[in-house]
């Protein structure tokens, strides 16, 4: 799946926990430093944010009108 923000997308909107976390970490592992990926979720993943901060990854979150949180993560 591709998206205007990046071609690396994890659409976790209909996944059960902890699948979104696992899928995001797996995709991050495949990226080069500085590359970006997008996580789509119907909630803000605060536990994931914490891991991202601990690992030095930057992220920006935007709430879309349909309730999707778009989380753009930079490896």
């Amino acid at each position, binding site marked *: 799946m591709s998206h205007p923000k990046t071609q690396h997308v994890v659409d976790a909107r209909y996944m059960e926990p902890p699948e979104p976390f696992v899928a995001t970490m797996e995709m991050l592992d495949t990226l080069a430093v500085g590359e970006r990926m997008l996580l789509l979720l119907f909630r803000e993943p*605060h536990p994931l944010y914490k891991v991202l901060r601990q690992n030095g990854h930057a992220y920006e979150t935007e709430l879309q009108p349909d*309730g999707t949180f778009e989380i753009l993560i930079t490896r």
Partner: protein
Amino acid sequence: MLPMLAFDNAPPFKAPLRFFLTAPLFGVLAGVLVLVEGGDLFASRWTPGALAVTHLITIGFMLQVMLGALIQILPVVAGASLAHPMRVARNVHPGLSIGALMLAAGFLSGSPALLGGGAVVLGLTLVYFLTVSLAALWPVPATSPTIRGIKLALLALAGTAMLGIVMALALALGWSVPLVALADLHAGWGLGGWSGVLLAAMAYVVVPMFQLTPGYPARPSWWFPAFMLAAMLMWGLAVLIDWPLLGRLCLILSALAGIAFAGLTLRLQFKRRRARPDATYRYWQLGLTLSIFGLFFLLTVGFWPAAAELAGWTLLFGILLVAGGFIPFIAGMLYKIVPFLSWMHLQNLGQARVPAPAMNKILAEAAMHRQFLAYGVALALLLGAAIWPEWLARPAGLAFTLANGWLFWNLAGATRRYRQHLADIELRLAAGPATP
């Protein structure tokens, strides 16, 4: 290796669990009271028995689970961690439980000491909880409707508690206050401002997450909590300046907002991607449907206040919204949260070497479903008892006692299995690296 889920700062399981296990026992107590008092309890919303049962349920059951869940869930849904979650749990749990018991005993006996004492214990407990939770939450920017909703709900809890304490002290000390108007306002703040807004804030996260539905649209989710709080503040003003028409307008607006939220949630649930309905889904369907009925009862009173004087009308509203709405929402959530937290803690404790058991091994779907059916029977009898109290009050009390006892049994069983798996994991970790 994948990093472990970031639950290293999650509160220990025993912090929320004590609240979750105590709540159904208050349900049992409320049922026993209905069983003992019989039809007299249903004579009006003002009978000592009805007031005691109402507070055993709203404080002993509902508030109990809500505060316990907040201790657990604040880091997950808001990124805000209480500084000392175990200490908060140890302080809040007895304060809430003893305060609820004293208040209920005060209503039943008419003892000013118990009423006033209960109000003081509950007041101190809530001041403490609100201080520590707002200290953790307030610095967090409201980046989601959930965070904003929890913040506003906590303010509404403060308002509810203040109104309740004023009334309890007025009854205990013989102050002259407009009790009926204040009681309606207290119920509005408690059910609409606190419980309703907190429910919505949690639903924004847990309904899509656990039931695999689409998300709540951003704009209405963002405004629902603020709208409810504004309606409650305006209602308070209406009582203060003695303008009943404004109060009725607020009641109508908040009932309509509640119906819209429940209707939207039902619509999302119909679009869910989880094929098989589980106990949580069924409990939520029941709760949403009966809340809508209950809110229509309330709406009618807004347009036609004389309806509140009709025999059984207000009781039916209360039973539909509290026993028909909030208890099913909470029971449904407990049936997801307790197995999920058990699994999560076991998964983390296993350090990726010993796998955690599946959630349905911790709490079986069939057990939850049977308890749900028992609760449905209790609810039908309670609704019937509001109309034919002399025939159905005692059977309703018995059924409500059994259904809550069964809820406790199921949750306690899950806890027991959690502890067994925990002991097993510790044993296997101590024995050395597991074979793949």
